[in-house]
């Protein structure tokens, strides 16, 4: 159930929303789609969700073309839009039952599936309320349940975590990992990089409608990638002098902190040991940002 996107392009009139995006998302993995506002993530997901025809390029979902075989593709995908609307007059349960009927799921199976999903997204006690009264985060969870109702093997989630409270985010993370563990392909766009760092296996960075790079996020990578570390010390002068003496690239950041660039965790540990040995009184030593954040900032640097 691989998603393959090759050089896809889509314009709206004279606005080029997606210039050239290529990516591959594999089954059993969570693939993150990250990029600045207006970089074309939603547009790409709409093309994957069989709603828009790409102007150029090719999309294959499980080997199927969403343009010529939309029905087959729709049977396999679950799509969660960024702004999820619901039929205001219906109750939460009825929303899910209606979507189940639209997927031609038999009524009794639809009922058990709806109950199970309501439990998954913790909306059981709101099941018979009107969807209109749901809060933003609750609507978002209903949207996730909606996307899962046909037991899709490919999930396309557009900013699923926006509006969720911290506990729901952690639960969303578990849901996504669980889906990937079942062998499903999960493509998720989000702006919350620390969150993605925890859940994604790889990240595709897009900017201005182009896919810039694909970053692996597994442990091996974290061990060797260059990262920024923040050092807090009681004698700032001594620390600065020491770093200058040892030619460690460093800069002052706010709150009396110093930031250094170190390649790999091995080197970071050695630097801390050296500082302590030479009598620099270190009170804090931590990564300033995740690997994903660094990669994202580096890739989209030209915006500054």
């Amino acid at each position, binding site marked *: 159930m691989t998603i393959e996107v090759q050089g896809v392009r889509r314009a*709206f*009139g004279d606005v080029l929303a997606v210039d050239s995006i290529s990516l591959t998302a594999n089954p059993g993995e969570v693939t993150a789609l990250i990029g600045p506002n207006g970089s074309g993530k939603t547009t790409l997901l*709409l*093309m994957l*969700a*069989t*709603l*828009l*025809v790409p102007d150029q390029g090719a999309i294959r979902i499980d080997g199927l073309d*969403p*343009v010529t075989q*939309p*029905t087959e593709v*729709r*049977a396999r*995908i679950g*799509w969660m*839009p960024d*702004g*999820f*609307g*619901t*039929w*205001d*007059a*219906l109750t939460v349960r*009825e929303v899910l039952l*209606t*979507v189940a*009927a*639209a*997927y*031609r799921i038999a009524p009794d199976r639809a009922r058990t599936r709806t109950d199970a999903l309501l439990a998954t997204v913790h909306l059981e006690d709101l099941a018979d309320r009107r969807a209109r009264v749901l809060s933003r985060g609750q609507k978002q969870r209903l949207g996730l349940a*909606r996307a899962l109702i*046909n037991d899709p093997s490919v999930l396309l989630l557009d900013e699923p975590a926006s509006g969720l409270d911290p506990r729901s985010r952690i639960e969303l993370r578990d849901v996504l990992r669980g889906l990937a563990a079942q062998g499903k392909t999960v493509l998720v766009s989000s702006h919350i990089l620390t969150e993605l760092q925890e859940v994604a296996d790889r990240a595709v960075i897009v900017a201005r409608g182009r896919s810039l790079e694909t970053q692996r996020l597994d442990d091996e990578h974290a061990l060797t990638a260059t990262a920024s570390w923040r050092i807090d010390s009681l004698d700032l002068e001594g620390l600065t002098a020491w770093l200058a003496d040892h030619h460690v690239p460093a800069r002052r950041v706010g709150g009396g902190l110093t930031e250094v660039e170190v390649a790999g965790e091995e080197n970071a540990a050695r630097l801390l040991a050296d500082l302590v040995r030479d009598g620099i009184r270190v009170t804090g030593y931590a990564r300033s940002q995740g690997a994903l954040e660094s990669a994202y900032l580096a890739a989209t640097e030209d915006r500054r």
Partner: protein
Amino acid sequence: MSWHGIRTVAALELRQRVRTSKWPVVLGIWVAVIALVAFLAYYATNDEQLRSGEAMYDVVVFFVLGLAMLIVPSLTATSVNGDREHGVLATLQTTLLTHWDIVLGKLVAAWALSMAFLVSALPFMAWAFFEGGVSFGRILLSLLVLVLVLAVICTVGLMFSTLTARPIASAVLTYLAMGALVFGTTIGFALSAFLVTDKEQQTVFGIPDNWYDTHQPPNVDPSDPTLTQEQIDQLMKAGQPTRADCTTFTRTTDVAHTERIWWMLPLNPFVVVADAAPSKPRPPQRNEVSTSAGFTPMRWISGGARLARNGPGGVSDECWVDEASSSSNQDPIEKALGTAPVWPYGLAFLLLAGTGAATVAGRRLRTPVRRLPNGTRIA
């Protein structure tokens, strides 16, 4: 496209309509207004002298059609773009429902609701039907025509809601289309009547213009005491033409060739409904000369439309001689009512327009989309 899909969409639409509480209120007001009109029409025409159930029939049936044409467009005119604005259209489009399921499901729901309006008006219409002396077959026919006209209006509204991004725009366009059908066709017919009017030679059967020159009425003084009443009558008659005096001659007059433009009239839903079942002429009553007296707009519309379709006949019968007026010489509208009806053309046009509108709506809902209208997002 499947029955299951259409039913799913229709059930969703109906459930939403029924839950939003304003529909029962609208239905209640509708029934109240129709009841009021029916009773008023009954009392207004329930005059000993002018007893005319057909006037009530005409008023009630036209009122139901007119009010339905105001209410029914609002069932569909914002259906698709309203859903898109609420972000619920794409939710359906990414399921196994096809674009035809969505279009037909929405149509079935809107049509079922407009049937609810029609059914709730039925008791008053039934009353009017019987007052109007319409036969049972004609009642069924006029109901069928009403049902089909309402279905076409639903479809036109749905089409406009797929064509514009903003619900306001599609609602305005739908009402404009209704206005074009009702008023546009009538005004268009009236204006283009001038274009088809020419000075032409016309064959006339009647009293020649020079008859009166050669038949000067004798100079009689009715108060002349030397004449008896009988003699006065005889002398007066001598100055009046009789049927034997009518001859065939030609004359140059303005002739309106309405048979070239009549097709505009049956495009009007009111003409279709009127022509499908005009009320029966009132049986002639004591001390009455003409049968077409009384307020019977549906008969006039029906007869007028047929008259326009027939156009100027070969020989214009203008032998209006008083003694024969009620038997051999009919009112032209009455005569036209005996000719073939025009409503099948109008209904065929409306059904064609409805099919076309449904096709356009279906195409506009097909996904994936290649071209999006400017300034809209699909989701």
